[in-house]
């Protein structure tokens, strides 16, 4: 009996302690619930509020979740009387080195207010390098003419900094496309004139000719609508950027990035080319009057010649080859290829001479560490004049840069192969 009683007592004590403790916790929880919720929300929004002077806590209607983009959330920031101050974007990036959360603030004039790394599990010292040396330069830039200026100084610090940078840039680009729907964006407007379904564009190849950049214009599903070429031309010390677009068979047209400071006659000049829109580019010549028009025509002719001489390959890591002429004779073949290097995709230019012998290669775009990739230019320079490169011979030069070296080797080999299969027989 005593035994049973003491057991009952034990159970009762445990029950009472449990009940009282449960009640106490539940009570505190209920009392502090609202305040904690508010705190959590404020902590999330604090970074937005810091960016926009005079902004008030956004209402739920102003916070929009975004799918299928590196940007996860767009917040419309308002002042106390409800006027829109600008838009804040929260984007997330993930690489093998960790996650990164980036906040981008854009004002109504389409200028970047600030870019901040809110949270990151990527290597702290690299993220700090981005914060200290890189993000400040983005402030107050116009989103339509971003100068990312990501140069080798930062890439040289490390591989990971380059990748963290890639995340940040991706998020800014995505934020910019979303913002373009709300803000006037001369770049998007220009692309819409050329390809009405445009949803995004990407740098494909860079040049140092009359045209400086080839961009892929894509629709919502990522299908390529056109290839656009940027042509910055100088008139009286002002640089005006024209953009011409091609499909694989046609010249689509030419238009201009009509920024506020672009002179009206430079904008109007493109009207002279309207007769050439949507025509076969083979043998196309531009016959126009006027000084500005002629300058444009010269650049456009250079571009058109390049497009005519270019053959699409789209296989074995190669994008295309440009046949180069010296008078009427073939003088060489200029390949563009791309392959994954250590940090990301390396875009390579490979030049073969008219007999298919290796002349040289160059990095068109490369996120890889300069200290690793640059020695390869010299190392491969030794094979100049050869029609074959065996991997073993070059191995020493690649130590420490295996991935970069492999990508260079693969693209050069693909160029040899393409020459042997297709060009050599001509």
């Amino acid at each position, binding site marked *: 009996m005593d035994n049973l009683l003491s057991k009952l007592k034990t159970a009762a004590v445990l029950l009472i302690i449990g009940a009282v403790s449960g009640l*106490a916790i539940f009570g*505190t929880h209920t009392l502090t619930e609202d305040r904690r919720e508010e705190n*959590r929300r404020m902590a999330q929004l604090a970074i937005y509020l810091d960016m926009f002077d005079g902004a008030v806590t956004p209402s739920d209607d102003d916070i929009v979740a975004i799918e299928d983009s590196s940007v996860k959330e767009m917040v419309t920031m308002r002042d106390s009387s409800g006027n829109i101050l600008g838009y804040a974007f929260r984007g997330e990036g993930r690489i093998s080195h960790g996650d990164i959360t980036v906040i981008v603030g854009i004002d109504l004039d389409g200028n970047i207010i600030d870019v901040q790394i809110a949270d990151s599990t990527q290597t702290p010292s690299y993220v700090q390098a981005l914060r200290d040396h890189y993000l400040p330069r983005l402030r107050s830039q116009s989103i339509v003419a971003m100068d990312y200026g990501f140069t080798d100084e930062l890439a040289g610090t490390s591989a990971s900094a380059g990748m963290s940078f890639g995340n940040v840039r991706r998020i800014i680009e995505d934020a910019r496309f979303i913002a373009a729907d709300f803000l006037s964006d001369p770049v998007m407007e220009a692309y819409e004139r050329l390809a009405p379904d445009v949803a995004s564009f990407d740098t494909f190849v860079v040049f140092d000719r009359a045209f400086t950049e080839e961009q892929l214009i894509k629709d919502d599903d990522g299908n390529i609508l056109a290839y656009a070429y940027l042509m910055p031309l100088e008139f009286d010390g002002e640089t005006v950027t024209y953009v011409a677009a091609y499909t694989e068979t046609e010249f689509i047209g030419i238009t201009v990035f009509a920024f506020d400071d672009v002179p009206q006659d430079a904008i109007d000049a493109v009207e002279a080319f309207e007769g050439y829109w949507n025509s076969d580019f083979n043998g196309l010549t531009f016959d126009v009057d006027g000084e500005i028009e002629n300058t444009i025509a010269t650049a456009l002719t250079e571009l058109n010649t390049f497009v005519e001489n270019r053959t699409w390959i789209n296989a074995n890591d190669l994008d295309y080859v440009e046949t180069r002429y010296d008078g009427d004779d073939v003088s060489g073949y200029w390949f563009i290829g791309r392959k994954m290097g250590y940090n990301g995709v390396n875009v390579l230019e490979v030049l073969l001479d008219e007999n298919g012998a290796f002349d040289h290669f160059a990095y068109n775009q490369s996120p890889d560490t300069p200290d690793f990739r640059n020695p390869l230019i010299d190392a491969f320079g030794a094979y100049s004049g050869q029609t074959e490169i065996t991997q073993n011979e070059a191995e020493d030069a690649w130590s420490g840069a295996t991935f970069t070296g492999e990508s260079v080797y693969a693209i050069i080999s693909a160029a040899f192969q393409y020459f042997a299969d297709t060009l050599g027989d001509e």
Partner: protein
Amino acid sequence: MAKTKNVKKEMSRLANFTKGFFKENPVFVFLLGLCPALAVTGTVEASLGMGILVIFVLTSSNVVVSLIRKWIPHQIRVPSYIVIISTFVTIVGLLTEAYAYALHGELGIFIPLIVVNCLILGRAESYASKNKVHDAAIDGFGMGLGFLGALVVIGFFREFLSTGAIAYGVYLPLAETPGSIINIDSYVFSMDAFGQAPGGFLVIGLLLGIFNFVAILKRNKKERERQRMIEEKKRQALERKRQKAKEKAGANA
């Protein structure tokens, strides 16, 4: 007679309160609660915050354990203590999240981990379960203060060595805008490692070593003092012996 008894009790109560400061300091003497002492002492403010939370939990759990000490059957006492302690820890966690959100973020996982701080369970088991409520409260508060003091000392060295400044208002609602008490802008005080994980071990190790060193110096001094007294006594004895011998010789002569 009654008067002296009272005085004696007062004295012991004061001793009970202050014993945790130095003589029985939970961190430096008993090495209890080292996890938070290492983890959250990167800055003075975080140390202060953790100290306050521990004082609250320790005092409350001591009081409750002491209150119900007679009703708790012996075999279930430890689970009961754990339930009581974790109740207070949960409450403290919720309150911190509501009223000191930045501190909550900084202490993070170490708030729920107060549950397994051996200091608290240790005091419940060894003191509160055997003593009256007010004694238990004093013990909890005093021990908690000792813990807080130790944390703040560690935090001071770590923050100062890693940043050259002692900041306030960052985590605790101490001021409208954050500021700093000391701020020495010198490259000497930018040893990041002290703010991060390795610094915790190094600073506590160095502090313990220095405390030991001081204690040893004191002990040696006492030892030397004693030695000197002994020597002195020996010398005096010898003197007296000589004197006596001399007197004896004089008497003989």
